[in-house]
């Protein structure tokens, strides 16, 4: 019993002494630790000062580059004889055209076929944009190129049969709405000619009015009876 108690006390004393040694720092250790921490702080503060100087220099550089970019952009505008407003107007026009194309892309092929005149108007707007000095700018040029590709995709969605017909000059025969409507690749049915006339009324009437003004005794009395070689007609589907 005494032996066991002694051994337990012995083990307890050893544990306590080890524990005590671990938690308590000697003064020497304290001084080393303090010096170490102070050195770390000093070194970090020196590096902080260096980093702050580099950061300031980089910020100055960014300001300088922004100034140079603005200067070069103005030089480009001066070369083309235009202003920032012209660029904004062109970009707005591009956005508007893009929106219209996207709307048309949502239509079925047959519905799209009925909107040929809208497609032609879009193509005309793109052509007008390409004639402006602003189209020389790379970012505008790239956006116009995107629009043209979108229009090609749109046109590839149209049904197979031709959507347009150019009035021809046929020796010994006159191209007319009746005959055009009769062609297999158009309607295959001559009685459908009023659809072609309705879709192209403005072009046909304009041609007819010019004919009437120039002729002393006009042979034809109705616009739908007279079409001219070269006229481009929409064929509604």
């Amino acid at each position: 019993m005494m032996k066991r108690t002694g051994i337990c006390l012995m083990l307890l004393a050893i544990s306590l002494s080890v524990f005590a040694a671990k938690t308590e720092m000697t003064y020497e250790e304290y001084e080393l630790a303090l010096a170490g921490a102070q050195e770390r702080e000093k070194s970090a503060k020196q590096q902080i000062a260096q980093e702050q100087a580099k950061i300031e220099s980089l910020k100055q550089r960014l300001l300088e580059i922004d100034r140079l970019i603005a200067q070069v952009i103005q030089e480009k505008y001066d070369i083309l004889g235009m202003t920032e407003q012209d660029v904004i107007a062109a970009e707005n026009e591009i956005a508007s055209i893009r929106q219209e194309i996207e709307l048309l892309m949502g239509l079925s092929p047959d519905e799209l076929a009925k909107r040929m005149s809208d497609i032609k108007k879009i193509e005309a707007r793109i052509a007008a944009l390409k004639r402006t000095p602003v189209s020389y700018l790379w970012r505008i040029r790239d956006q116009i190129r995107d629009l043209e590709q979108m229009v090609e995709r749109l046109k590839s969605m149209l049904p197979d049969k031709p959507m347009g017909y150019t009035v021809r000059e046929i020796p010994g025969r006159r191209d007319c709405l009746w005959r055009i409507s009769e062609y297999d690749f158009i309607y295959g049915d001559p009685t459908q000619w009023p659809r072609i006339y309705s879709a192209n009324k403005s072009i046909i009437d304009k041609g007819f009015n010019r004919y009437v003004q120039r002729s002393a005794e006009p042979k034809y009395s109705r616009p739908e009876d007279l079409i001219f070689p070269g006229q481009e007609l929409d064929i509604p589907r």
Partner: protein
Amino acid sequence: MMRVSHFSRFMMAACFAAAMCTMSGCTKKPSEEEMAKLEEAKSAAESAERKLAELRRERMELEAQVQAKEAELGSHEAERDELKQKMGR
């Protein structure tokens, strides 16, 4: 039996003495005030190191921005030179 008994008593005494020496402070130890000063110094060092890490991140981001802006400037200059050629200026 006698040897074991002597040995046990000796060991008990030796361990007790060692424990008492350790716990009662035979060597010099830092005071509570000094320990607090050490903790403060460690805390200040850690704070400075955190600030340094933040500044390094900021510097790297700015370097990336400068690089991107310089590329943008180069592109604008190339476009301007092309326009000069095209427009004959």
